């Protein structure tokens, strides 16, 4: 008990594609929980199941204590959602969009009027409330959608790639709002992203790939699990130092576009050793702390491509079906 989201052995199969493959996890009240994964990993599918838009092929999910299959109505009342693709009515004004949402959730006119002003101020759109959404920038639309998702004061807010395609300032501003909401209202946030830096905002992250959870922990623990620092070594042209380093120091070495990627416990003391042993064969050495990217590479053997594809392009991408993988 006490978990606001409980997911048990959830699976979703579309024809030949296993989009979500037997995942289980729980989310605590007030937590910011993130799904981090590449295109087609099954992030949106999981969200759609949790908010009762899709039926799972197998498994169970409970939100705020209600079963998504048996009590969809109560589940819907407990959640707010920002979809991956905009679902605003762009012919109507910002205020009208919020008003319609409030009507659907049964807010009385007086409460609704107050809330609309409240959320618009929270996301900094109060002056633009009478303008047609069509005239809004991508960031403004996203902020409006977050305001709308929160308008009926849900206990859980789902955000499917809330800041995709937005500039860093806007992303930071949106995160400021989200942290404030969590702090002031005890809101639970479930979000998906394929931005590593965005995942850092989460209390806990599930790394998901091919519909499976590969790891689940706090960002710090995930990074710590790599056990140290990351060195990038660029050898002198034509020399493959990988086997040599691997044998000599008994460390993990991988080829990457930037050079040799080496995981070591204590980077600062390893560099002098490396330099004195192999200095004449090395062009440069670069030391950094591990990032979630490194965790992802370690777990899946490849990097998440941080492409800034448009929604339409990504829709096309995700319609290429991935073959069944078992």
């Amino acid at each position, binding site marked *: 008990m006490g978990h606001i989201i409980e997911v048990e052995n959830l699976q979703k199969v579309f024809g030949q594609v296993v989009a979500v493959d037997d995942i289980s996890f729980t989310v605590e009240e007030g937590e910011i929980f993130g799904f981090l994964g590449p295109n087609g990993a099954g992030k949106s599918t999981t969200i759609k199941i949790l908010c*009762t838009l*899709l039926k799972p092929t197998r498994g169970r999910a409970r939100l705020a204590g209600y079963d998504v299959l048996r009590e969809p109505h109560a589940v*819907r009342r407990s959640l707010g*959602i920002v979809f991956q693709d905009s679902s605003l009515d*762009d012919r109507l004004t910002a205020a009208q969009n919020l008003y319609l*949402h409030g009507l*659907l959730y049964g807010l009385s006119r007086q409460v609704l009027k107050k809330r609309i002003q409240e959320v618009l101020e929270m996301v900094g759109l109060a002056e633009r409330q009478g303008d047609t959404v069509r005239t809004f920038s991508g960031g403004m639309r996203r902020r409006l959608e977050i305001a*709308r998702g929160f308008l009926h004061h849900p206990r859980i807010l789902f955000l499917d790639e809330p800041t995709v395609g937005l500039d860093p300032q806007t992303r930071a501003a949106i995160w400021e709002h989200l942290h404030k909401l969590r702090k002031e209202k005890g809101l639970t946030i479930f979000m998906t992203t394929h931005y590593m830096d965005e995942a850092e905002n989460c209390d806990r992250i599930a790394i998901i790939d091919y519909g499976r959870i590969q790891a689940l922990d706090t960002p710090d623990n995930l990074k710590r699990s790599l056990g140290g620092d990351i060195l990038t070594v660029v050898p002198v042209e034509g020399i493959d130092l990988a086997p040599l380093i691997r044998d000599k120091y008994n460390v993990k070495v991988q080829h990457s576009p930037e050079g040799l990627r080496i995981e070591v416990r204590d980077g600062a003391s390893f560099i002098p050793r490396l330099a004195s042993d192999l200095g004449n064969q090395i062009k440069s050495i670069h030391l950094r702390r591990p990032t979630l990217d490194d965790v992802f590479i370690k777990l899946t053997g490849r990097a998440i491509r941080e492409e800034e594809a448009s929604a339409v392009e990504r829709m096309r991408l995700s319609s290429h079906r991935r073959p069944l993988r078992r």
Partner: protein
Amino acid sequence: MPAALRAIYTIWYRDTLRLLRERTRIIGMLGQPLIYFLIVGQGISSAMGFRGAPPGLNISYLQFMYPGILAMSVLFTSISSGISIIWDREFGFLKEVLVAPVPRWATAIGKALGGSTAAMAQAFILLFLAPLAQVSLDFITAVQLVAILFLISLALTFFGIAIASHMETMEGFQMIMNFLIMPLYFLSGAMFPMQSVPAWMAFLMRLDPLTYGVDALRLLVYRNADPQILSFLVRYDLKIDLSVLLLLVLALGAWGTWSFSRQE
């Protein structure tokens, strides 16, 4: 307010808000009937004569077509409003309605009422323009016409919703327009009286639900005409027309809401 009523009202309100905000649509609604009147009155009518008409038939083709034009505008507006839920479901507002704590069937009904409201707005414009077609209507007749048009439009919007619910993509849209709406219209008796066509076509016309709507509209407009002329213009009793229309609203309403609720 119970959740279902809330949903019906919200969806209807949203469609109506949009209608009022879209100036091009309102201009289209005004312009389209004027174009019909012009084409039918000045163009088509010059090439048309009534085959097998009783002596003393003294109405022009434009006058004959007027109820058909009413039906046509309602047909197009209703079906396209119904089908527009595809756009909404993929790209817009409807996604947000689908996760709200309201029943799906209520959403479909709200949509049907919204589509019918748009169709009615256009019908009102056409009713005001009746004198242009040399058709004179008294108030009672106009009200009765509106009632019939509303039934037609409700049935057809539900029909559009049902089709949309079974369509995965928008590619089928043009097909439906060509192979469904056009035959529905041409076989409805809007353009020619059923009495003067070959038996096989009369049979098809009897299968076309819109036939009964057009028949009822024409009956209401020409009910004061000479009985012999009336029986050439109108095929069925108003009771029959009305029963068929009501049945259609119920059947298509059930099919539309069921199809819409059923989809994932």
